[in-house]
């Protein structure tokens, strides 16, 4: 009964909106975008969605546009509406508004996800769409469109390589490397370039920090250290001397890692400790203020701080690692910035639970290393 009432209300809103000459879809889209945590707003959004998917394909650009400022939750509601409307149109023999969808894809002010969704519907109805779009998308701000554009260049490079045109292959792979942002593509390109005699410094290319000041070890028996605010978290003083739980003096020391992709192995610095916590600290200088992502991976519990503010924390031990698995977002100031990482090891004794490591890079939202200088002590 409640759902019926909400549906009727949506229909009335739609009709009154049409009568007033406003955008037909605005109130429906607003109801969908209002969904919040724990399903708040779901009944109203569900009723609005029912009305939305009755629209013809001409509504697609507006629904796609609504994804731009939608929450991740609302974006999934809206993409379902796009798919349902487009599906229904095609199965009913109608055509999609190709020119408007193409314009939407080319307009990089729109969300990368929404543009990609529109692009995929264009591909569905015309398999020549990639040839028209991808050559111009090597610098696309949308991750997936850019990825496909890079894939085309990688394919070209491989074709040169297969024909033993090594100079052309090398040039094409370098071009792909310049534009690639996804780690699998970058690692593939670097491996192919290596076969051509070109070494790529992936640590630098990805923007991993490999020179840190480190201090440890602080207590993490029974996991207490993850939740304890230790002195470095209140402000880093590289001259400070701290004490561990047994009164042993702890001092900052410089650590430059030679391990691949900036991996810092605390076991190599402090021995194979358990129930322990260590910190790594770096000062980086940025030429400008900019949004930034600190991307880390670790098999241990980890917290990241940017300029004294915690931007990420995850208390999970030995459950698997993948490059960039942890992402903290913040603003890099013009000039001096402080990055602090807290890595806690637990007390598991299994052979697979002995690692106490992390790696961290500084990049933009697509994964490109941002220009910065890591200060020496």
């Amino acid at each position, binding site marked *: 009964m409640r759902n019926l009432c909400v549906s009727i209300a949506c229909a009335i809103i739609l009709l009154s909106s049409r009568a007033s000459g406003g955008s037909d879809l605005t109130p429906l889209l607003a109801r969908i975008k209002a969904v919040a945590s724990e399903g708040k707003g779901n009944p109203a959004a569900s009723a609005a969605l029912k009305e939305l998917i009755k629209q013809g394909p001409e509504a697609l650009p507006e629904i796609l546009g609504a994804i731009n400022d939608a929450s*991740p939750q609302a974006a999934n509601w809206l993409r379902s509406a796009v798919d349902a409307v487009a599906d229904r149109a095609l199965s009913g023999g109608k055509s999609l508004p190709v020119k408007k969808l193409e314009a939407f894809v080319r307009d990089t002010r729109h969300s990368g*996800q929404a543009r990609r969704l529109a692009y995929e519907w264009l591909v569905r109805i015309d398999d020549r769409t990639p040839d028209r779009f991808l050559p111009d998308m090597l610098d696309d701000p949308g991750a997936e469109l850019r990825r496909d554009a890079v894939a085309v260049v990688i394919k070209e490079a491989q074709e040169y390589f297969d024909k033993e045109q090594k100079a052309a292959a090398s040039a094409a792979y370098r071009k792909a490397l310049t534009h690639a942002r996804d780690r699998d593509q970058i690692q593939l390109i670097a491996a192919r370039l290596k076969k051509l005699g070109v070494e790529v410094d992936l640590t630098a290319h990805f923007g991993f920090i490999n020179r840190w000041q480190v201090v440890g070890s602080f207590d993490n028996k029974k996991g207490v250290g993850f939740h304890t605010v230790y002195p470095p978290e209140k402000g880093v003083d590289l001259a400070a001397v701290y004490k561990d739980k047994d009164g042993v003096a702890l001092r900052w020391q410089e650590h430059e890692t030679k391990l691949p992709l900036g991996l810092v192995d605390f076991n190599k610095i402090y021995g194979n400790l358990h129930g322990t916590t260590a910190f790594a600290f770096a000062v980086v200088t940025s030429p400008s203020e900019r949004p930034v992502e600190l991307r880390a991976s670790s098999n241990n519990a980890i917290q990241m701080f940017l300029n004294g503010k915690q931007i990420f924390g995850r208390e999970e031990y030995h459950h*698997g690692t993948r490059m960039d698995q942890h992402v903290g977002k913040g603003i890099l100031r013009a000039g001096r910035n402080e990055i602090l990482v807290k890595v806690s090891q637990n007390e598991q004794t299994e052979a697979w639970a002995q690692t106490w490591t992390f790696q961290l890079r500084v990049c933009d939202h697509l994964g490109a290393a941002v220009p910065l200088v890591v200060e020496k002590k």
Partner: protein
Amino acid sequence: MTRILVAAIVVASCAFGAAVHAEDSPQFRGVGGVGVAETPLPVKWDKNENIRWKAALPGRGLSCPVVVGKRVFVTACSGPDQERLHVLCYDVASGDKLWHRQIWATGATVCHQKSNMAAPTPVTDGKHIYALFATCDLACYDMDGNLVWYRSLEGDYPTLVNNVGMAASPVLWKNRFIACLETSGASFAVGIDTATGQNAWKVERPKVINWVTPLIIKNHGKDEVLFQGPSDVSAHDPATGVKLWSVAGSFSTIPSPSFGDGLVMAPGGKMQAIRPPSGDDKAKIVWENAKLATGYSSPLVYRGLVYTISTRGIVNCADALTGRTVFSQRIDGTFSASPLAVDGKIYFVNEEGATTVMQAGAQPKFLSVNNLGDTFLASPAAAGGALYLRSDNALYCIAAKK
């Protein structure tokens, strides 16, 4: 028809409503989640024989196909970080794709290489399909692929992350979608209103990662939902989430319990048979058998016997009421999928694509080995006389061609 199947159908009719029938396979391990169906299946097949259809999938998945009426549903994931989550619907008779929907992952996509983001099996009440992913994205569609509601559970509970990969499948009971999401961060069981997608109840669970699918049983006329954790098996009221009883012990966090002959078969380092409470008798473990230990697959209770298959292919069989070992026999392959019993036969699907068909009973008698040469980790589903096998890249419908 066996007592188990009757019990499963009774539970299913209560749990799913009239739109799901005994011929369907609406959830992980089919009706009642016990891996038992009745309509005979082919005993022999290969790439050319008895393949009614084969459909290419857009990505990997460990989830089982679910079948209701004329539709079969399957989930998959794709993309460099498995960030694309797919729900697909096929026509049972022809294998034609009826619809394909996608959502963007909003939760973490890190997992063990053996798993992936399409690990939990979806569940259907015959009117809607509820697709839960390892990212804790949850979408409810109608039978025509229209979204009814959607939840980002990691968005709601940001520490709901398991970097090995979530995998417990959900179950349905009347108007409750029930999932047990246990991690070292947020850890809870939740009953979600199927009409709105909003929480009807939510109870805390131990902060330990766990992949066990809940089990709904009928105990003295009342439905109970069971959650198996590393240190206990507990029963809750599916309507409210209120805890009813529990049995302490050491239990597995990967294979899921099964139910038959009035006993809950709870896997672990050893199989433990739990008799639910009755009158003044508290729930208790009535037998244990260490030979019945399993790695990934769940136990099967069928016609008075309990069967397990180890990761390395040892089929163990015991008397369901006493736990006394009946036989132990090796078959070829590595096994992740749970066994399926249909029409007096048991189907064991190995990771290398071979399905061994065994006559059910106290004497091991193997009827066929059917090789498709593909990678299978998902448990098989049987519905309407067809066997559905899901590989890393395809969905197979094995049945006599119509």
